[in-house]
């Protein structure tokens, strides 16, 4: 099945209940403190999924957890051996994923399933079905229009939903989405020409609704031409307060570190943890030499990588315009500010 379909909102929960039988369900949920977070739905009857607020996290951590065991090791009696973790990832449907976060998954695929296939990531990714939700109303700090990663996306999803008032227009992306639609076809009716036209209209309206005006193209061009003066890196590095929040909240930041945790004299676990290129320990070598001058360059790699290197490597910036770092940075070193500074003469 491909093409466009309609799902009545009345039946969303029962559709989710069906797919929940064979899959874990992840969606943006309001927790008891009022925070909206992508979370696993334990009980669909009581799941307060929330589509009118931006989820504070993306879905990065479901594929690339903040901390994960990549091996257990033992060293005894002349043997030093490593064993891969045995847990198999569960099949999971991610529902209500916005364009920016879908785009972020495509970037993560480039990183973890490019020339080198990272087994940890790939195992989870292969078990994932992504159901997107186009953004009719961009949120306060959104600028995906500038990074060309939304608000409506043409690919990168298995199924894509568009809110049309009392129903969802459902668009089929990849094979897994088509299979899901076919399996539960009783929920879907073919969309009319008018309904398909309406989606186009909604996407135009969404484009007009951005509150920020961010000129990413201009900054990218100036970075590529080497026209961004050192003083910008310096003044922003001075203000970076070394918290790593931007990298942790960013749906495309994938740098990691690997550490051993000793559990006894002769065994332990090897962990992969999120890391951030803004930390001085990220590049400091044994013996203390650091090729990155922390005080003046700590944030340079972050913006160069996202806005310049990845454009060169993959054709698009790895900033997806979700605006989360704008909220989280308490030194005012967010990417929107940088783009503005870099774009100025």
């Amino acid at each position: 099945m491909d093409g466009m379909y309609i799902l009545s909102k009345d039946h969303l929960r029962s559709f989710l209940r069906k797919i929940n039988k064979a899959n874990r369900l992840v969606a943006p949920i309001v927790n008891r403190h009022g925070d909206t977070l992508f979370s696993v739905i334990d009980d669909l009857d009581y799941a307060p999924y929330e589509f009118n607020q931006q989820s504070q996290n993306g879905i990065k951590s479901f594929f690339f957890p903040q901390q994960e065991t990549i091996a257990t090791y033992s060293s005894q009696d002349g043997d030093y051996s490593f064993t891969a973790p045995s847990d198999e990832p569960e099949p999971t449907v991610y529902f209500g994923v916005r364009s920016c976060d879908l785009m972020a998954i495509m970037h993560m695929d480039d990183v973890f399933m490019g020339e080198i296939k990272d087994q940890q990531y790939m195992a989870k990714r292969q078990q994932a079905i992504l159901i997107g939700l186009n953004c009719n109303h961009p949120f306060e700090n959104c600028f995906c229009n500038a990074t060309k990663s939304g608000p409506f996306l043409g690919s990168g999803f298995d199924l894509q939903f568009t809110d049309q008032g009392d129903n969802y227009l459902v668009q089929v992306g990849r094979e897994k989405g088509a299979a899901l639609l076919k399996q539960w076809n009783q929920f879907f009716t073919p969309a009319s020409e008018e309904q398909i036209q309406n989606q186009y209209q909604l996407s135009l309206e969404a484009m007009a609704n951005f509150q920020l005006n961010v000129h990413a193209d201009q900054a990218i061009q100036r970075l590529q031409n080497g026209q961004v003066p050192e003083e910008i890196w310096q003044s922003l590095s001075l203000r970076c307060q070394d918290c790593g929040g931007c990298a942790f909240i960013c749906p495309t930041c994938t740098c990691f570190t690997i550490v051993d945790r000793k559990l006894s004299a002769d065994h332990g676990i090897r962990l992969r943890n999120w890391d951030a290129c803004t930390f001085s320990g990220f590049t400091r070598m044994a013996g203390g030499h650091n090729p990155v001058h922390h005080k003046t360059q700590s944030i340079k790699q972050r913006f160069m990588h996202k806005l310049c290197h990845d454009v060169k490597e993959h054709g698009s910036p790895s900033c997806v315009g979700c605006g989360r770092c704008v909220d989280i940075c308490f030194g005012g070193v967010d990417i929107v500010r940088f783009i503005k500074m870099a774009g100025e003469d």
Partner: protein
Amino acid sequence: MQTIATENYLPQSAIIHKIINENSQIKTFEIVFANQAVHDSLKYLPGQFMMVSVPHCGEAPISFSSSPTRTDAICLSVRKAGQLTSAMHDLKAGDNLGLRGPYGTPFDMVSLKDRDLLFVAGGIGLAPLRGVINYCLDHRNDYGQIFILYGSRLPSDIAFHEDIKLWQQESGITCLLTVDASEPGWDGSVGLVTKLLADINIDPSKSSGIVCGPPMMIGATLKELSNRGFADENLITTMERYMKCGVGICRHCHLDDKLVCTDGPVFTRAQLKTMDVAELR
């Protein structure tokens, strides 16, 4: 050059066969994989590195100091610098290590064929070059004259004595040493390693310069050789960075838009000049 398509980050068990004390800070570990089949299937070239695990200490990248032409054991020469390398220095023959690799882009031994080769090393920087030099010796007819210039901080810091002795006896090889500061009993050259360039007769047009050492030394030496007429394409170095994955994902070893682990560690000066690199600043 990647030999594997999927990465699970699992090291293989290996055994330290022999340890050579090169100086008070540097040891060379001769290592074989515990599993003979694994050992036999290892294919590497000079310039590549292994990710080395020591129990409870995590991993660190260490360049081969051996040539793949000598298959009985692989050599890793290690200066005591951080937690992992200090723990390595506490190991003894018969102890275990974890190894995964090889990783990284090696020296292009094919394009170096028929050229005269100038090796300039400082301190532990001789370790990766040792692999290249011995490779050339084992393919002696493929390469022209060989010059080795080796600088140390003090006479007591000079490492790789065994190798140096052999190289100095070999015909067609010039191997000169210098130290930054003298100590009693030293009657050799005193001064920076670039000073030794005055003592050799080399034609830059048919030679390649291969440089490794501390960051400042690399920058200064490449510049000096360039001034002496070496083309940037024929000036080659190998870079050192903090690394975690070794396969181009974790990004600790970023070098402007490149990664040392996969794009390097071997780079030409021509490549480095297109990037923002601390060593050349």
